[in-house]
């Protein structure tokens, strides 16, 4: 670990662990107390380490300090008698000998419970993502606002409302029981999927933040994979999908931050380690004999990691999109299917398909239309229509480059 970012990197990994474990003792309604203790623990490190030197195992040092602070806090607030003791009344534990368990197992259990609590169906998707970033990923309000392209005030208000809701609905930090688990896990996976996409598709100018969102979503998915009852096909498939997508993170933006579409990407910038990981999780997911939405999406993403255009590749992708569209009606997927169809069966077939369906007209629609049309002025006409739907300079610039390439060809 580089000593010049020791505290920020410890903060990213350890702050949320301390908060999750302490909240599991104090109760979710006392989460602010857990957060205060975690913050004070870091403050104590900065007031101690300059004089005493940086400890050999900084994380263990933080845990010891956090434990002691938590014990003191429990004594002071008589919380121990009211909250912890009743649950422990059959064991011989009292406040003095009471120990807070910061073992790796209890840390990941607590983080999982926290993940289920903040991905609670009573919360909006935006609130779930913001809470995950704040509580489980240790992001500051500023960083969340940057990552979600929102303002500090809006994020802060959103978080406050979400926390109030968790309290008023008395959401508990528990692992869902076997009957509820599949449904609750679905919501958790969707939260992670959205979190990842926020990073992947975000127009935030801060490259690092976008990447961090993707990495954090993958870290949380990893937490689910480590637990037997949440290591499902969907979890493996989602992880696989995220690995494949993330492998192209560096290739899909130019040095100036312009979007580079898949066919134009330099595959030497693809991260092969992540592609291998994605393939591993896809294999894991294929042990289950059904084909879920995430599994199909991961399989499509897998084919995209093979740069060579073979008929087999695009025919497989078309088939996978067919299956995916049976599960959910999704216009983007339907248009992506038509793009794949043009590669497999030619532009004329794909164009007929596009025109036979009533898609909502947007930038992507006209971009696809322009690609499928054969005559130059019709292509240009479609690109001009696409321009009407450009939302920002980046998109306008992207279309202008396309237009220039077309007129000079």
């Amino acid at each position, binding site marked *: 670990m580089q000593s010049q970012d020791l*505290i*920020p990197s410890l903060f990213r990994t350890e702050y949320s662990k301390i908060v999750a474990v302490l909240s599991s003792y104090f109760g979710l309604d006392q989460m602010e107390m857990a957060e205060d203790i975690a913050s*004070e623990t*870091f*403050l104590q490190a*900065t*007031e101690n380490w300059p*004089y005493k030197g*940086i400890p050999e195992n900084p994380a263990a040092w933080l845990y010891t300090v956090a434990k002691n602070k938590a014990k*003191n806090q429990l004594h002071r607030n008589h919380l121990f008698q009211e909250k912890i003791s009743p649950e422990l009344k059959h064991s011989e534990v009292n406040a003095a000998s009471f120990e807070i368990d910061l073992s790796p197992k209890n840390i990941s259990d607590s983080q999982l419970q926290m993940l289920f609590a903040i991905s609670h169906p009573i919360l909006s998707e935006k609130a779930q993502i913001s809470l995950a970033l704040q509580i489980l990923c240790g992001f500051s309000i500023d960083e969340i606002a940057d990552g979600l392209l929102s303002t500090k005030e809006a994020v802060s208000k959103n978080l406050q409302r979400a926390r109030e809701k968790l309290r008023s609905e008395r959401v508990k930090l528990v692992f869902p029981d076997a009957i509820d688990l599949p449904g609750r896990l679905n919501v958790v996976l969707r939260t992670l999927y959205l979190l990842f996409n926020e990073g992947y598709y975000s127009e935030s100018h801060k490259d690092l933040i976008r990447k961090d969102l993707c990495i954090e979503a993958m870290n949380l998915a990893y937490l689910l994979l480590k637990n037997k009852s949440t290591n499902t096909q969907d979890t493996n498939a989602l992880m696989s999908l995220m690995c494949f997508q993330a492998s192209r993170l560096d290739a899909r933006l130019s040095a100036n931050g312009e979007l580079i579409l898949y066919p134009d990407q330099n595959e030497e910038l693809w991260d092969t380690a992540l592609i291998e990981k994605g393939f591993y999780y896809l294999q894991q997911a294929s042990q289950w004999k059904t084909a879920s939405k995430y599994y199909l999406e991961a399989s499509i993403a897998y084919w995209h990691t093979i740069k060579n255009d073979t008929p087999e590749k695009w025919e497989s992708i078309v088939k996978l999109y067919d299956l995916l569209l049976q599960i959910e009606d999704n216009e983007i997927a339907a248009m992506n299917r038509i793009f794949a169809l043009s590669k497999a069966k030619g532009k004329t077939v794909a164009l007929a398909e596009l025109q036979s369906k009533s898609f909502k007209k947007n930038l992507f629609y006209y971009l696809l239309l322009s690609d499928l049309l054969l005559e130059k002025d019709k292509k240009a006409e479609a690109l001009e229509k696409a321009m009407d739907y450009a939302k920002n300079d980046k998109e306008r610039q992207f279309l202008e480059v396309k237009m220039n390439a077309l007129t000079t060809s």
Partner: protein
Amino acid sequence: MKEFILIFRHENATGKVSPEQMQQWMQMQKEWVDGIAAQNKFIGGTGLLFDNAKVVHHDKTVSNGPFGEIKETLGGYVMVRAESAEEAAEFAKGTPILMGEGNTVEVRAILVH
């Protein structure tokens, strides 16, 4: 060689500190301390937190604090060896605490006899 205590006083020590700010402060303070230690003139020191802080008053009542009632708070101290108060004051100039406007370092000789 005499012994001196350098007492850090902060103005408005409250407010949220980001991990990056913590890092910056810690690193600079550590480099400062290490510089004095390299001359074998560092005796000891520590930062001080507000956890569990108490004030005991003249009538022996104990209150939590000091919160609110004062503008300046004690943030920590280090003890150094130096030939003179001037040398000790030279040391004091190097601490990042002085980057905060309104913060001061008080230099006092420790009585040995």
